[in-house]
């Protein structure tokens, strides 16, 4: 229903929670810098870096932005945006990755 007037409480995060998440994010940042200097073969290096970034992004979105406690629809908006972004990239790559010459010459 749309006009729900029941007073749903806004979730108040605890300071400890927020600092914990902040600390985790700093640790993950240091981790990603350290890992980047290790000799990892492509494409695993990109996958690793992006995976760490995704974990960080999840922490920010879920706990700093409050999606964990929010109405599910707002999370769907975020996921929807990412889905369309991925579609845009993969379908464009269908062209750019499979061309004969990088820049078509006529």
């Amino acid at each position: 229903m749309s006009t729900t007037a029941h007073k749903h409480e806004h979730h108040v995060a605890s300071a400890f929670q927020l600092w914990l998440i902040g600390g985790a994010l700093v640790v993950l940042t240091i981790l990603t810098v350290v890992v980047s200097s290790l000799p990892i073969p492509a494409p695993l290096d990109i996958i690793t870096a992006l995976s760490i970034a995704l974990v960080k992004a999840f922490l920010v979105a879920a706990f700093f932005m409050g999606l964990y406690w929010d109405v599910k629809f707002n999370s769907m908006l975020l996921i929807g945006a990412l889905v369309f972004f991925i579609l845009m990239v993969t379908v464009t790559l269908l062209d750019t990755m499979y061309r004969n010459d990088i820049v078509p010459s006529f």
Partner: protein
Amino acid sequence: MANHSASQPAHVQHHFVDSDQQFDSAKLGMWVFLVNEILFFGGLFCAYIIFRVWYPDLFSQAALELNKVWGGINTIVLIGSSLTVAMAIRSAQRNEIKGLRINLMITILLACVFLVIKYFEYEHKLHLGIAPGSFWNPTPEVLAVLDHPKANIFFSIYYVMTGIHGLHVIVGIGLMIWLYIRAGKGHFNSEYYTPVEITGLYWHLVDLIWIFLFPLLYLIE
């Protein structure tokens, strides 16, 4: 008729039934706007991915010109600012207006630190002739390391992505200064702190974008 009932607080606009509906609508509207921002930056990330797939060696070489340490510090600075803005919202929810203002101020300061570091990064590069577009004029020392014919493309992407991100940081600073002033005038309390909440969401997005920019630009080996 269409009179405002006295049972609703003054901050509730006339077309909303109550404060909750207004708050939820504002949050939903802001999330829709963030979707829009994700697709906006998404276009840039798409260009990045396409060019990186075409010229992987270029990207490995060119990233050497970027300083991991300063990039990493900037990342931690932004994470810190995300933390403080979340604390600011928490203060508002607990009606601690002084805490709200302090946290906002720290967020603003951290954001400024980010910009200062960025400024020095840009200055260093421009000094070396690593400039966008037609100003591309790298010094011989740079060319010794970076001899890819398409090197200007990487830096075009770098400048556009970090530049537009930086613009968003500046806008965020402006918004938070405005919030700081309004908080000082007593506009916010635990019943009404919607502008703080939605500005916080915007700021977290700015942080999120950087979380991806950092490894993609700085940490390519």
